[in-house]
């Protein structure tokens, strides 16, 4: 059932891509020489890199391998700091990045290589520390309440069969074209205004909006909306 649908989807997409090359409506990555510099990473390279980081992360969690941890640090630290800096958290970027790596070390055992790439797992830590920071800022603005540290003891075992799901992840996200992905990244994950995202992607804000709409539409249909 799923296979039939996917096949149908692929055929349709290919057909649309052919048609839309002329009208310049993009449904599938269309190579635009001008925008080569923002072109996505080569799939094979990024797969190999992902595997590499996964091995590093497993070395950290299983053997508490300092060298592997340092390699992860050297690779991800500048990216994380830039991520925070880009979101205007100038004063906190350094401290939050430091905190991210403390968590990476502490939580290493909960990293499940079957479930996510290292970059995705680290992203969730980066994201949550940002949420905490913004929430803390609000709370101190509104009242002087102290935040309560929860004392959780048990490790949650996340050992579920997920390699099948991983395949699906790639399929779903691959349904988005390059522009749609970039727009989602900028507007949601990098928290940029439509204007700023538009400027960086060399589009008009109107195009940014319509790319978001079309991306949501694709995701809705792919992930099974309501």
């Amino acid at each position: 059932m799923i296979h039939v649908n996917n096949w149908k989807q692929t055929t349709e997409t290919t057909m649309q891509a052919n048609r839309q090359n002329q009208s310049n409506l993009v449904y599938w990555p269309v190579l635009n020489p001008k925008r080569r510099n923002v072109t996505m990473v080569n799939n094979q390279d990024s797969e190999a890199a992902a595997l590499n980081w996964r091995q590093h992360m497993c070395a950290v969690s299983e053997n508490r391998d300092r060298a592997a941890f340092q390699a992860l640090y050297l690779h991800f630290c500048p990216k994380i700091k830039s991520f925070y800096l880009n979101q205007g958290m100038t004063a906190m970027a350094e401290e939050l990045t430091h905190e991210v790596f403390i968590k990476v070390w502490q939580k290493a055992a909960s990293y499940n290589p079957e479930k996510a790439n290292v970059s995705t797992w680290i992203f969730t830590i980066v994201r949550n520390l940002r949420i905490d920071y913004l929430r803390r800022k609000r709370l101190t603005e509104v009242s002087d309440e102290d935040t309560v540290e929860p004392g959780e003891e048990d490790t949650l075992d996340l050992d579920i069969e997920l390699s099948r799901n991983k395949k699906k992840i790639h399929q779903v996200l691959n349904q988005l074209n390059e522009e749609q992905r970039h727009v989602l990244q900028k507007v949601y994950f990098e928290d940029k205004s439509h204007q700023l995202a538009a400027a960086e992607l060399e589009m008009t804000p109107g195009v940014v909006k319509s790319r978001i709409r079309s991306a949501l539409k694709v995701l809705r249909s792919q992930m099974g909306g309501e």
Partner: protein
Amino acid sequence: MKYHPDIEILLKYSSGQLEPSLAVAIGLHQQNCEECQQRISELESVGGETLETIHKVFKTQDSNVVDDFDKLFSDIEALPQDSYSGEYDNLAIAQSDIPLVDQLYNRRFEEIAWQRVAPKIWRASIAMNDPGYEVELLKFSANAKIPKHTHKGNEFTLVLQGDFSDHQDRYVEGEFIVQDQSNEHQPIAGKNGCICMAITNAPLKFTGTFGPILNWFNRQ
């Protein structure tokens, strides 16, 4: 489960942009919904990709980075050796909201200071310090009729326990329902009663016979 948060809410949630009140509701839904867990991890991988493709925006010497690492590692070595764990770490919510999520997820409803507002209806408001939304818990006895009401803005409902029905459908535990001002409805709690989390960006407006009284309560 039939009623799930829309992909746009999940996108805001996964990227850490969702308002705290809604994030708590989505986090609770996520705990109970494998389908949304799946969707959320898909969206999070866009976050991972964002991180991976980001360009460095500051200048630094490589030697500084190594020094920073040494400092980091000495901080780590100074930490207690206990194994770290956090049950709700996978949720995109603030640490400070975890006690609330834990209480609701484990259904410790007896701890809540319920306030009776009408026969068979209790409520308790939750202080979230979320400027955008008001959060309250509503508790209905078995088969309680919830007075007819409309919503000025959007109302997000998460069914925490039991179920309720309206003219459109029956809503069960874990479901996340969105209603806007165009939905005037008169829900009825199921045979085991119902506890919901209701998130509104404007107060409910009751329209039935008890309307004026309930609206007065609502302003309290």
